[in-house]
């Protein structure tokens, strides 16, 4: 007998993601899912911009990591609510993990929920967490071929933060070509160029996030 199934492998994840999305919408909390390779500077970017964000809005952070709570401790030092999720070897966060920790936050006091995914450019792109949009952090040190190798990740993202631009003089990466490759995959993507180490370009990124928070607060 032939059984027609026609079920997406991600269907059950997407159901829970929709539940998370409703939860964020009820509290008018903007949720952002941050993706990037290990070492691209995801946590450093958050640390470098959280002070600027705190002046204007109320941020909170969910840290995804394989097994340590080092990133959460780094964020907690900046005085924002943070919860660590350990995936115990799992290479990505899924919607269920987020649903489990959301009750531990008072979302009515959170304008922006930043979810830092596990360092990985592959699997996190396929798992909707209920976020408003995804952001990829890509560092100059990773080389120029990441967009071509992982197009799905750049397709799914609304913005790319190109980090470590202070390393450009020491690398073969051509910034204009890199940006063109990214826009070939996703013409609408917003691109930020930053150096967390030299504190360059961070205000544009922080202001954009704040404007997205305001947009959501006005529309919900």
């Amino acid at each position, binding site marked *: 007998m032939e059984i*027609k*199934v026609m079920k997406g*492998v991600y269907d059950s994840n997407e159901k829970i993601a929709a539940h998370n999305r409703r939860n964020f919408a009820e509290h008018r909390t903007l949720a952002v899912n941050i993706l990037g390779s290990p070492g691209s500077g995801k946590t450093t970017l958050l640390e470098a911009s959280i002070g600027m964000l705190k002046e204007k809005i109320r941020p909170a952070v969910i840290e995804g990591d394989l097994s340590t709570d080092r990133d959460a401790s780094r964020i907690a030092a900046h005085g924002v609510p943070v919860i660590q999720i350990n995936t115990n070897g799992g290479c990505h966060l899924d919607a269920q993990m987020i649903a489990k920790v959301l009750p531990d936050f008072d979302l009515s006091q959170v304008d922006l929920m930043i979810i830092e995914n596990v360092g990985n450019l592959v699997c996190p792109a396929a798992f909707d967490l209920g976020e408003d949009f995804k952001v990829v952090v890509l560092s100059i040190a990773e080389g120029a071929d990441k967009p071509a190798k992982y*197009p799905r990740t750049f397709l799914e993202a609304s913005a790319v933060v190109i980090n470590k631009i202070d390393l450009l003089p020491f690398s073969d990466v051509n910034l204009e070509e890199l940006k063109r490759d990214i826009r070939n*995959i996703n013409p609408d993507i917003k691109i930020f160029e930053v150096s967390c180490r030299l504190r360059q370009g961070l205000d544009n990124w922080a202001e954009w996030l704040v404007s997205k928070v305001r947009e959501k607060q006005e529309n919900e």
Partner: protein
Amino acid sequence: MSLMMQIFDIINQTISDYKVKKVKRVTLKVGKMSNVMPDSLSFCFEVLSEGTKCEGAELVIQETPLTGRCLDCQKEFTSEGFPLACPNCGSRNTRMIGGTELAIESIEAE
């Protein structure tokens, strides 16, 4: 491997609704841009099916192409990669409409 475990969850749920003795074939639809490697799917299927009703079953992987729609002339088209340029009118004003799916299409069982 965790994806294949989810695939098995769906298979087991589905066959529990029917009186299935043995699964002979499972057909998956895998988008060209799904980031999933067909070889590793086949390997994980073999490993996880041991000792189940799926043991020895054939895993058929249908790769679906990267598909776009032109926002200028409204034509749908397939593409080998990015950028998505419309082959009909040459416009780059296009949207991707398919190529990232990962779905179980059908199960052949007895």
